[in-house]
Protein backbone atom coordinates (compact mmCIF):
# COMPACT_ATOMS: atom_id res chain seq x y z
CA UNK A 1 0.00 0.00 0.00
CA UNK A 2 1.41 3.37 -1.06
CA UNK A 3 0.46 6.64 0.50
CA UNK A 4 0.97 9.67 -1.67
CA UNK A 5 -0.21 13.24 -1.91
CA UNK A 6 -1.54 14.69 -5.13
CA UNK A 7 -0.95 18.45 -5.24
CA UNK A 8 -3.94 20.23 -6.78
CA UNK A 9 -3.85 23.97 -5.87
CA UNK A 10 -7.16 24.82 -7.48
CA UNK A 11 -10.03 27.14 -6.63
CA UNK A 12 -12.97 24.87 -5.75
CA UNK A 13 -15.30 27.26 -7.60
CA UNK A 14 -13.04 27.61 -10.67
CA UNK A 15 -15.48 25.87 -13.03
CA UNK A 16 -18.43 27.98 -11.91
CA UNK A 17 -16.37 31.15 -12.24
CA UNK A 18 -15.30 30.18 -15.76
CA UNK A 19 -18.91 29.42 -16.76
CA UNK A 20 -20.00 32.77 -15.32
CA UNK A 21 -17.29 34.58 -17.30
CA UNK A 22 -18.49 32.94 -20.53
CA UNK A 23 -22.09 34.00 -19.84
CA UNK A 24 -20.99 37.54 -18.91
CA UNK A 25 -19.12 37.90 -22.19
CA UNK A 26 -21.95 36.42 -24.25
CA UNK A 27 -24.48 38.86 -22.82
CA UNK A 28 -22.03 41.76 -22.85
CA UNK A 29 -21.25 41.30 -26.55
CA UNK A 30 -24.95 41.30 -27.28
CA UNK A 31 -25.41 44.58 -25.44
CA UNK A 32 -27.08 43.32 -22.27
CA UNK A 33 -25.78 44.68 -18.97
CA UNK A 34 -26.38 42.11 -16.23
CA UNK A 35 -26.98 43.49 -12.73
CA UNK A 36 -26.98 41.26 -9.66
CA UNK A 37 -29.10 42.95 -6.96
CA UNK A 38 -28.41 41.80 -3.42
CA UNK A 39 -29.69 42.73 0.02
CA UNK A 40 -31.25 41.35 3.13
CA UNK A 41 -34.94 40.38 2.84
CA UNK A 42 -37.23 43.39 2.74
CA UNK A 43 -34.62 46.00 1.81
CA UNK A 44 -36.67 46.96 -1.24
CA UNK A 45 -35.18 45.16 -4.23
CA UNK A 46 -38.54 44.50 -5.88
CA UNK A 47 -39.83 48.00 -5.13
CA UNK A 48 -36.67 49.49 -6.65
CA UNK A 49 -37.14 47.33 -9.73
CA UNK A 50 -40.77 48.44 -10.08
CA UNK A 51 -39.66 52.08 -9.98
CA UNK A 52 -36.79 51.34 -12.40
CA UNK A 53 -39.18 49.65 -14.84
CA UNK A 54 -41.51 52.66 -14.77
CA UNK A 55 -38.62 55.03 -15.39
CA UNK A 56 -37.22 53.00 -18.30
CA UNK A 57 -40.64 52.30 -19.87
CA UNK A 58 -40.49 53.21 -23.55
CA UNK A 59 -36.80 54.15 -23.28
CA UNK A 60 -34.85 51.05 -22.38
CA UNK A 61 -35.62 47.36 -22.51
CA UNK A 62 -35.23 45.41 -19.31
CA UNK A 63 -36.05 41.98 -17.91
CA UNK A 64 -35.89 40.55 -14.41
CA UNK A 65 -35.02 37.15 -12.99
CA UNK A 66 -36.19 37.05 -9.43
CA UNK A 67 -34.97 34.55 -6.87
CA UNK A 68 -36.81 33.45 -3.76
CA UNK A 69 -36.97 30.33 -1.65
CA UNK A 70 -40.66 29.88 -2.40
CA UNK A 71 -43.63 31.58 -4.12
CA UNK A 72 -43.83 33.77 -7.20
CA UNK A 73 -45.01 36.85 -5.34
CA UNK A 74 -42.21 39.10 -6.58
CA UNK A 75 -42.65 37.95 -10.17
CA UNK A 76 -46.38 38.71 -9.94
CA UNK A 77 -45.59 42.25 -8.81
CA UNK A 78 -43.17 42.84 -11.68
CA UNK A 79 -45.06 40.99 -14.44
CA UNK A 80 -47.33 43.93 -15.40
CA UNK A 81 -44.21 46.04 -16.02
CA UNK A 82 -41.46 43.87 -17.51
CA UNK A 83 -40.68 40.34 -18.70
CA UNK A 84 -39.94 38.42 -15.52
CA UNK A 85 -39.14 34.84 -14.53
CA UNK A 86 -39.34 33.61 -10.96
CA UNK A 87 -36.51 31.37 -9.81
CA UNK A 88 -37.47 29.35 -6.77
CA UNK A 89 -34.54 27.79 -4.99
CA UNK A 90 -36.62 25.39 -2.90
CA UNK A 91 -34.86 26.41 0.28
CA UNK A 92 -31.38 27.20 -1.01
CA UNK A 93 -30.04 30.48 0.32
CA UNK A 94 -28.60 31.87 -2.91
CA UNK A 95 -28.84 31.67 -6.69
CA UNK A 96 -26.35 29.83 -8.85
CA UNK A 97 -25.64 30.26 -12.55
CA UNK A 98 -27.53 27.18 -13.86
CA UNK A 99 -30.73 28.45 -12.24
CA UNK A 100 -30.19 31.89 -13.77
CA UNK A 101 -29.61 30.33 -17.19
CA UNK A 102 -32.79 28.30 -16.84
CA UNK A 103 -34.73 31.48 -16.06
CA UNK A 104 -33.19 33.27 -19.00
CA UNK A 105 -34.20 30.41 -21.27
CA UNK A 106 -37.74 30.48 -19.88
CA UNK A 107 -37.94 34.12 -20.94
CA UNK A 108 -36.69 33.21 -24.43
CA UNK A 109 -33.25 34.75 -23.79
CA UNK A 110 -34.56 38.27 -24.44
CA UNK A 111 -32.24 40.82 -26.07
CA UNK A 112 -32.70 43.52 -23.42
CA UNK A 113 -30.46 46.42 -22.39
CA UNK A 114 -30.63 45.60 -18.69
CA UNK A 115 -31.05 42.16 -17.19
CA UNK A 116 -31.62 42.37 -13.46
CA UNK A 117 -31.10 39.35 -11.25
CA UNK A 118 -32.91 39.92 -7.99
CA UNK A 119 -31.04 37.55 -5.72
CA UNK A 120 -32.42 35.75 -2.68
CA UNK A 121 -32.63 38.16 0.26
CA UNK A 122 -29.47 37.32 2.19
CA UNK A 123 -26.29 39.30 2.85
CA UNK A 124 -24.12 36.20 3.25
CA UNK A 125 -24.18 33.33 0.74
CA UNK A 126 -25.07 35.18 -2.50
CA UNK A 127 -21.79 37.09 -2.15
CA UNK A 128 -19.88 33.91 -2.97
CA UNK A 129 -21.57 33.14 -6.28
CA UNK A 130 -20.74 34.79 -9.60
CA UNK A 131 -23.88 34.78 -11.76
CA UNK A 132 -22.22 36.27 -14.82
CA UNK A 133 -23.12 39.81 -13.82
CA UNK A 134 -21.29 42.92 -15.00
CA UNK A 135 -22.38 44.93 -11.99
CA UNK A 136 -23.10 43.87 -8.43
CA UNK A 137 -25.28 46.22 -6.42
CA UNK A 138 -26.00 45.83 -2.72
CA UNK A 139 -29.05 47.53 -1.22
CA UNK A 140 -29.22 48.62 2.39
CA UNK A 141 -32.41 50.08 3.80
CA UNK A 142 -32.50 52.72 6.50
CA UNK A 143 -34.51 50.38 8.74
CA UNK A 144 -31.74 47.76 8.84
CA UNK A 145 -29.24 49.82 10.78
CA UNK A 146 -26.04 51.45 9.56
CA UNK A 147 -23.73 48.79 11.02
CA UNK A 148 -24.27 46.17 8.29
CA UNK A 149 -21.25 46.63 5.99
CA UNK A 150 -18.77 45.66 8.70
CA UNK A 151 -20.91 42.69 9.72
CA UNK A 152 -21.17 41.33 6.18
CA UNK A 153 -17.85 42.44 4.66
CA UNK A 154 -17.75 40.02 1.76
CA UNK A 155 -21.03 41.30 0.37
CA UNK A 156 -19.80 44.89 0.38
CA UNK A 157 -16.28 44.01 -0.78
CA UNK A 158 -17.58 42.19 -3.86
CA UNK A 159 -20.09 44.90 -4.83
CA UNK A 160 -19.40 47.85 -7.08
CA UNK A 161 -22.33 49.96 -5.87
CA UNK A 162 -24.38 50.42 -2.71
CA UNK A 163 -27.89 51.83 -2.80
CA UNK A 164 -29.37 53.17 0.42
CA UNK A 165 -33.12 52.62 0.22
CA UNK A 166 -36.20 53.84 2.15
CA UNK A 167 -34.66 57.28 2.53
CA UNK A 168 -38.08 58.70 3.47
CA UNK A 169 -37.88 56.83 6.79
CA UNK A 170 -34.63 58.53 7.79
CA UNK A 171 -36.29 60.97 10.24
CA UNK A 172 -37.84 58.02 12.11
CA UNK A 173 -34.94 55.60 12.46
CA UNK A 174 -31.50 55.70 14.06
CA UNK A 175 -29.57 55.42 10.79
CA UNK A 176 -26.66 57.54 9.65
CA UNK A 177 -26.02 57.75 5.91
CA UNK A 178 -22.53 59.05 6.73
CA UNK A 179 -21.76 56.12 9.06
CA UNK A 180 -22.94 53.41 6.66
CA UNK A 181 -21.07 55.05 3.80
CA UNK A 182 -17.82 55.28 5.75
CA UNK A 183 -18.15 51.68 6.95
CA UNK A 184 -18.77 50.44 3.41
CA UNK A 185 -15.94 52.51 1.90
CA UNK A 186 -13.50 51.08 4.44
CA UNK A 187 -14.24 47.64 2.97
CA UNK A 188 -14.65 48.71 -0.66
CA UNK A 189 -13.06 52.14 -1.26
CA UNK A 190 -14.14 52.07 -4.91
CA UNK A 191 -17.85 51.63 -4.14
CA UNK A 192 -20.35 53.99 -5.80
CA UNK A 193 -22.91 55.09 -3.22
CA UNK A 194 -26.45 56.11 -4.18
CA UNK A 195 -29.63 56.62 -2.21
CA UNK A 196 -33.31 56.78 -3.02
CA UNK A 197 -36.89 56.22 -1.99
CA UNK A 198 -38.59 54.02 -4.55
CA UNK A 199 -42.05 54.62 -3.11
CA UNK A 200 -42.10 58.37 -3.78
CA UNK A 201 -39.65 58.14 -6.68
CA UNK A 202 -36.96 60.39 -5.24
CA UNK A 203 -33.48 59.41 -6.39
CA UNK A 204 -34.80 57.03 -9.06
CA UNK A 205 -33.76 59.22 -12.00
CA UNK A 206 -30.28 59.42 -10.49
CA UNK A 207 -30.18 55.61 -10.09
CA UNK A 208 -31.24 55.11 -13.70
CA UNK A 209 -28.63 57.63 -14.90
CA UNK A 210 -26.07 55.64 -12.95
CA UNK A 211 -27.23 52.46 -14.73
CA UNK A 212 -26.88 54.21 -18.10
CA UNK A 213 -23.31 55.24 -17.23
CA UNK A 214 -22.51 51.72 -16.10
CA UNK A 215 -23.97 50.38 -19.34
CA UNK A 216 -21.63 52.56 -21.41
CA UNK A 217 -18.63 51.99 -19.19
CA UNK A 218 -18.85 48.26 -18.58
CA UNK A 219 -19.93 47.19 -22.06
CA UNK A 220 -17.52 49.48 -23.95
CA UNK A 221 -14.84 46.81 -24.08
CA UNK A 222 -17.08 44.51 -26.10
CA UNK A 223 -17.43 47.10 -28.85
CA UNK A 224 -13.80 48.10 -29.25
CA UNK A 225 -11.89 46.79 -32.27
CA UNK A 226 -10.48 43.37 -31.39
CA UNK A 227 -6.90 44.67 -31.30
CA UNK A 228 -7.69 47.11 -28.48
CA UNK A 229 -9.23 44.59 -26.10
Amino acid at each position, binding site marked *: *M*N*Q*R*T*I*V*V*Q*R*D*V*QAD*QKADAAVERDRLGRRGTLVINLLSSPGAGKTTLLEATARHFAGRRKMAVLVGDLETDRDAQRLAPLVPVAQLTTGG*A*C*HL*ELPLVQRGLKALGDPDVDFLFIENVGNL*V*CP*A*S*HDLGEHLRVVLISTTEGDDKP*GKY*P*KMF*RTSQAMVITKLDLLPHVPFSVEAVTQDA*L*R*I*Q*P*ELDVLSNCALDGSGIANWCDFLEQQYQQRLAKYHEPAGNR
Partner: protein
Amino acid sequence: MHERSLVQNLLRQVAEIVAAEGGGQVTEIHVQAGDLSGVEPLLFQTAFDDMVSAVFSSDCQLALEVVPVTAVCSQCGHQFEIVDFQFRCPACQVGSVRVIQGDEVTLISVTINSNNSIEGVAS
Protein backbone atom coordinates in the same frame (compact mmCIF):
# COMPACT_ATOMS: atom_id res chain seq x y z
CA MET B 1 -25.67 27.17 4.45
CA HIS B 2 -23.83 27.34 1.14
CA GLU B 3 -21.02 25.39 2.83
CA ARG B 4 -22.94 22.25 1.89
CA SER B 5 -22.90 23.07 -1.81
CA LEU B 6 -19.19 23.91 -1.58
CA VAL B 7 -18.44 20.59 0.13
CA GLN B 8 -20.50 18.72 -2.46
CA ASN B 9 -18.51 20.44 -5.18
CA LEU B 10 -15.23 19.68 -3.42
CA LEU B 11 -16.00 15.97 -3.00
CA ARG B 12 -16.98 15.66 -6.66
CA GLN B 13 -13.70 17.27 -7.75
CA VAL B 14 -11.65 15.06 -5.44
CA ALA B 15 -13.41 11.97 -6.79
CA GLU B 16 -12.56 13.02 -10.36
CA ILE B 17 -8.92 13.67 -9.46
CA VAL B 18 -8.55 10.32 -7.69
CA ALA B 19 -10.20 8.48 -10.59
CA ALA B 20 -7.84 10.19 -13.04
CA GLU B 21 -4.91 9.08 -10.87
CA GLY B 22 -5.96 5.43 -11.04
CA GLY B 23 -8.06 5.27 -7.87
CA GLY B 24 -7.22 4.70 -4.24
CA GLN B 25 -8.51 5.31 -0.77
CA VAL B 26 -8.68 9.00 0.07
CA THR B 27 -7.27 9.61 3.55
CA GLU B 28 -6.96 13.39 3.66
CA ILE B 29 -8.26 16.39 1.74
CA HIS B 30 -6.32 19.59 2.38
CA VAL B 31 -8.32 22.77 1.83
CA GLN B 32 -7.52 26.43 2.38
CA ALA B 33 -10.40 28.81 3.03
CA GLY B 34 -9.65 32.50 2.94
CA ASP B 35 -11.04 34.94 5.49
CA LEU B 36 -12.96 36.49 2.61
CA SER B 37 -14.12 33.22 1.07
CA GLY B 38 -17.49 33.38 2.78
CA VAL B 39 -16.83 30.06 4.46
CA GLU B 40 -17.41 29.51 8.15
CA PRO B 41 -14.83 26.81 9.09
CA LEU B 42 -17.02 25.08 11.67
CA LEU B 43 -19.96 24.82 9.25
CA PHE B 44 -17.65 23.62 6.48
CA GLN B 45 -16.23 20.92 8.76
CA THR B 46 -19.73 19.88 9.87
CA ALA B 47 -20.94 19.67 6.28
CA PHE B 48 -17.85 17.65 5.36
CA ASP B 49 -18.34 15.19 8.26
CA ASP B 50 -21.94 14.84 7.24
CA MET B 51 -21.34 14.26 3.54
CA VAL B 52 -17.96 12.57 3.14
CA SER B 53 -19.10 9.01 3.78
CA ALA B 54 -21.42 9.12 0.77
CA VAL B 55 -18.37 9.47 -1.50
CA PHE B 56 -15.30 8.24 0.39
CA SER B 57 -14.51 6.27 3.51
CA SER B 58 -15.64 8.03 6.66
CA ASP B 59 -11.99 7.80 7.78
CA CYS B 60 -11.15 10.47 5.22
CA GLN B 61 -10.05 13.59 7.07
CA LEU B 62 -10.50 17.22 6.16
CA ALA B 63 -7.45 19.39 6.84
CA LEU B 64 -8.98 22.84 6.77
CA GLU B 65 -6.65 25.79 6.99
CA VAL B 66 -7.92 29.35 7.26
CA VAL B 67 -5.73 31.86 5.46
CA PRO B 68 -5.68 35.64 5.90
CA VAL B 69 -6.60 38.04 3.13
CA THR B 70 -3.62 39.45 1.26
CA ALA B 71 -3.86 42.36 -1.14
CA VAL B 72 -1.55 44.31 -3.42
CA CYS B 73 -1.88 48.04 -4.02
CA SER B 74 -2.52 48.93 -7.66
CA GLN B 75 -0.75 52.25 -7.16
CA CYS B 76 2.49 51.53 -5.31
CA GLY B 77 2.63 47.73 -5.49
CA HIS B 78 2.83 47.31 -1.71
CA GLN B 79 1.68 43.86 -0.61
CA PHE B 80 -0.08 43.68 2.73
CA GLU B 81 -2.38 41.62 4.91
CA ILE B 82 -5.92 42.92 5.32
CA VAL B 83 -6.71 43.46 8.99
CA ASP B 84 -10.24 44.20 10.16
CA PHE B 85 -11.41 44.45 6.54
CA GLN B 86 -9.57 47.74 5.92
CA PHE B 87 -9.05 47.65 2.17
CA ARG B 88 -6.85 50.69 1.82
CA CYS B 89 -3.14 50.60 1.15
CA PRO B 90 -1.35 51.34 4.44
CA ALA B 91 1.63 52.69 2.47
CA CYS B 92 0.00 55.19 0.11
CA GLN B 93 -3.66 55.23 1.31
CA VAL B 94 -4.98 54.38 -2.15
CA GLY B 95 -8.25 52.45 -2.16
CA SER B 96 -7.66 50.53 -5.36
CA VAL B 97 -6.23 47.27 -4.09
CA ARG B 98 -6.40 43.80 -5.55
CA VAL B 99 -6.95 40.76 -3.36
CA ILE B 100 -4.39 38.09 -4.25
CA GLN B 101 -5.17 35.56 -1.53
CA GLY B 102 -7.96 34.84 0.90
CA ASP B 103 -11.10 35.32 -1.18
CA GLU B 104 -11.54 31.74 -2.29
CA VAL B 105 -11.71 28.12 -1.20
CA THR B 106 -8.71 26.26 -2.58
CA LEU B 107 -8.24 22.52 -2.87
CA ILE B 108 -4.55 22.23 -2.00
CA SER B 109 -3.94 18.49 -2.10
CA VAL B 110 -5.43 15.02 -1.80
CA THR B 111 -3.70 12.19 0.05
CA ILE B 112 -4.50 8.66 -1.07
CA ASN B 113 -3.55 5.12 -0.24
CA SER B 114 -3.33 2.97 -3.32
CA ASN B 115 -2.09 -0.44 -4.30
CA ASN B 116 -0.39 1.00 -7.36
CA SER B 117 3.27 1.86 -7.18
CA ILE B 118 4.04 5.50 -7.98
CA GLU B 119 5.70 4.39 -11.23
CA GLY B 120 2.64 2.34 -12.04
CA VAL B 121 0.36 5.36 -11.64
CA ALA B 122 2.63 7.60 -13.65
CA SER B 123 2.64 5.22 -16.59
